[in-house]
């Protein structure tokens, strides 16, 4: 590697930093004023890419061969996406500003699902190649190496927009109101500023920035349906590293991350003491490493401040009540019934197949509930531990050739290890910071699994993961998978009992104390971070076990196990069942899995359908389903 190639890589990094900064700046601005973490922000970026493509198609015959056409298309898609943002704010977000933040995240995630399918419907599944920008084609020599002209233009745009935003924020009344509202929006409202108009315009500007970033990205990357999630998770990392609500922080963070990534690519494969080490593979881990180092030194990011207390579920919902849960008898009867089921349902073999799924997801939801309900930590990346368990078991089985039972025992340690590492960082944050960080971690796990072909099989996944012969054998008079069904039932029942026992133990009480008042808990001698970290590890192990059981029931695994969508499924299960009772996640998981199975996901737009259902849940029951239960139970509050 030469100095020149390093320089060109770093310059390329700077160009990438520009669009990354634009997306993150929009996210940060919207969060600062409305306190909503806009999960659909990556989708707005993607819509920007697509709109720029369409606008370019329209303008090409009118303005052939001129650079003006391209820049006009960029401007148009910025405006279109800004208008879309304003529309979303008025139709959806305005109704949920007072809802718990978990619901806001779910609602904006639902919007992301709808937008993704909207793009599929409008533009189809094929990648759409962007135009080359007239006047900015070709390359300029940098120390004799070619550097794309367009990238050089991009390098200038980032600081330009930062400067422009700075001017607007400091020199206009609108900007002053935005800064005032970022600190204390209630006071701004009490001074006569119409909140709704301010929020709509901030949302429009934030969305417009995402649209602009998307439009500018088009010449570097074709428009495709996979752009939304990487865009949002990158923006999350940048905003967390830079400090939520700080634009200069977002700029610095975007530069730092892009340059570190570029350096990794530039270093290439390095031979060191006989080992060859491929730095380019590190790019995703590099993002994580930067974030980890920054958060250890500055928990609120490079230029962020401690956020105001989040409106978490913990403060808006009553604590779950173990005493109110059904007694042992109904559960005992249920388990006995389930044990007998393979023989009772011998005529419909599919029943026990679906129920294995239900068991696995019940344990998955229960483990998420464990840190979410009593722990008050809303993980948006719980699928990471599920997937790590599954891949852990698969790798033990494939690489070592040990028997399946060893894989069953060792696999959950994959989930444990993930929780041990990620939990250490996560418990240092709370509220939306924690949600974003866990999401980013799961994206990283997904990327590693997706890229590490040799170990994980990459996008193809791993196949041939069948249970030991004695677990696949036909049990007389029962359904085909009866043996494995019973193993799953027993493992899940024991794990759920253990989780429940832990929650009733002093440890569980300490966990709740840390959720309800960290300061008071500390002052009576509870090491809140340590308790939360331990809870993360317990939950990670349990989720890992669920992943292992799931993997062996399917016979193959793929990176989809770790996908953000699965993490969100988990959240929906927990919320569906209600966070008030320990039985909630089990009931929620069963209902969700059975629903999903019967709906069959057989039509193209199931994501949008799921999104619409989620939006309905959040908008019709803004206090959550648990709030509905509460109303029913105590009708005499008004």
């Amino acid at each position, binding site marked *: 590697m030469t100095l020149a190639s390093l320089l060109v890589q770093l310059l390329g990094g700077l160009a990438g930093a520009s669009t990354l900064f634009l997306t993150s700046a929009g996210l940060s601005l919207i969060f600062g004023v409305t306190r909503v973490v806009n999960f659909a922000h990556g989708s707005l970026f993607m819509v920007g890419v697509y709109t720029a493509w369409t606008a370019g198609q329209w303008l090409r015959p009118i303005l052939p061969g001129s650079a003006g056409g391209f820049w006009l298309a960029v401007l148009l898609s910025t405006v279109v996406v800004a208008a879309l943002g304003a529309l979303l704010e008025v139709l959806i977000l305005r109704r949920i500003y007072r809802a718990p933040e978990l619901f806001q995240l779910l609602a904006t995630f639902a919007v992301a699902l709808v937008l993704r399918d909207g793009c599929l419907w409008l533009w189809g599944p094929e990648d759409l190649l962007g135009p080359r920008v007239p006047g900015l084609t070709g390359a300029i020599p940098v120390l004799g190496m070619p550097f794309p002209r367009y990238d050089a233009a991009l390098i200038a745009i980032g600081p330009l927009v930062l400067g422009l935003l700075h001017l607007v924020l400091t020199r206009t009344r609108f900007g*002053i109101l935005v*800064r005032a509202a970022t600190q204390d929006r209630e006071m701004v409202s*009490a001074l006569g500023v119409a909140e709704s108009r301010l929020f709509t315009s901030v949302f429009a500007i934030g969305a417009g920035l995402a649209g602009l970033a998307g439009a500018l990205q088009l010449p570097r990357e074709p428009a495709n349906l996979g752009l939304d999630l990487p865009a949002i998770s990158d923006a999350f990392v940048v905003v967390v590293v830079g400090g939520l609500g700080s634009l200069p922080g977002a700029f610095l963070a975007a530069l730092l991350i892009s340059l570190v990534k570029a350096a990794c690519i530039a270093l290439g494969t390095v031979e060191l003491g006989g080992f060859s080490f491929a730095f380019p593979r590190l790019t995703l881990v590099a993002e994580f490493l930067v974030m980890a180092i920054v958060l250890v030194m500055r928990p609120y990011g490079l230029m962020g401040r401690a956020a105001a207390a989040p409106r978490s579920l913990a403060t808006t919902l009553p604590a779950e009540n173990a005493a109110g849960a059904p007694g042992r008898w109904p559960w005992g009867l249920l388990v006995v019934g389930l044990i007998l089921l393979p023989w009772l349902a011998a005529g419909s073999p599919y029943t026990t197949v679906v129920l294995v799924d239900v068991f696995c997801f019940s344990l998955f939801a229960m483990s998420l509930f464990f840190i979410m309900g009593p722990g008050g930590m809303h993980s948006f990346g719980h699928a990471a531990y599920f997937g790590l368990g599954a891949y852990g078991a698969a790798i033990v089985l494939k690489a070592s050739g040990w028997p399946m039972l060893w894989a069953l025992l060792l696999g959950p340690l994959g989930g444990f290890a993930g929780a041990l590492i990620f939990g250490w960082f996560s418990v240092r944050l709370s509220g939306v910071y924690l949600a974003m960080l866990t999401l980013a971690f799961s994206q990283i796990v997904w990327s590693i699994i997706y890229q590490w072909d040799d170990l994980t099989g990459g996008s193809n996944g791993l196949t041939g993961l069948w249970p030991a012969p004695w677990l696949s054998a036909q049990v007389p008079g029962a359904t085909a998978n009866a043996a494995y069904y019973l193993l799953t039932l027993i493992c899940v029942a024991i794990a759920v009992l253990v989780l429940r026992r832990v929650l009733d133990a002093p440890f569980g009480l300490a966990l709740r104390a840390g959720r309800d008042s960290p300061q008071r808990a500390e002052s009576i001698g509870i090491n809140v971070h340590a308790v939360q970290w331990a809870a993360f590890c317990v939950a990670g192990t349990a989720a890992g076990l669920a992943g292992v059981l799931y993997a062996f029931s399917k016979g193959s695994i793929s990176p989809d196990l770790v996908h953000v969508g699965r993490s969100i499924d988990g959240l929906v299960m927990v919320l569906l069942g209600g966070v008030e009772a320990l039985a909630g996640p089990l009931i929620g998981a069963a209902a969700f899995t059975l629903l999903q199975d019967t709906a069959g996901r057989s039509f193209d737009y199931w994501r949008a359908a799921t999104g619409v259902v989620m939006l309905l849940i959040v908008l019709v029951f803004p206090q959550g389903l648990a709030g509905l239960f509460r109303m029913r139970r105590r009708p005499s509050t008004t």
Partner: protein
Amino acid sequence: MSTASLPAAASPILAVSRLCAWYGRAQILFDIDLTLARGEVVALMGRNGAGKSTTLKAIMGLLDRVQGSIRLEGADIRGKPAWHIARAGLGYVPEDRRIFTELTVMENLAVGRQARRSDAPLWTVDKVFELFPNLGRMRNRRGGEMSGGEQQMLTVARTLMGNPRVILLDEPSEGVAPLIVEQMAAMILDLKHEGLSVLLSEQNPAFAGAVSDRACILEKGQVQFDGSMRSLIDSPEIGRAFLGL
């Protein structure tokens, strides 16, 4: 009981009746009746936790759950958003000041600026600086770099920029130096002179006595006394019972 002691003729600029308010599930205010005549200064008095600040917040539309009626010049403002109430002519000065610490004095004033309604006194930056000369000497200082007394003045100045008809002042004398307390008292009388009506919550009887025409004593979220300041001073047993004097 409260209506009996009112001057019968003047229609009040602010009339609160049967006001109840809740924090979450806990009811804090119980059927509060309260009136403020044009150009009048009324002190809401009572011990810590009696419901003084909650009353002001409820009037300002800052609480989620409020019942009863709140009329500003006859128009019911209960349930309206805070910005709507502010534009109708109610100015709110919170007890914990809540100035924008990242913004300069001028920027803080800019946030408060609202168009004037026909009959309210008009405030400009220059006129505000006449009332608070030392704020005029630190126009570009950030809110976070000011003393407590200066912040208190900035909070009032910021509210005045909205050209209110009525000001709700929450504990203006709390936590500031004695010299500033005197200045605040003089300022309230200045505002009254300008034609503003003031409803203030106050624990300091000397301060309340010096600036107020009437007093309204709250205890456990209920009105226990409503009468002229003179009648309160003349009946020390009331002060003993509710204010711990």
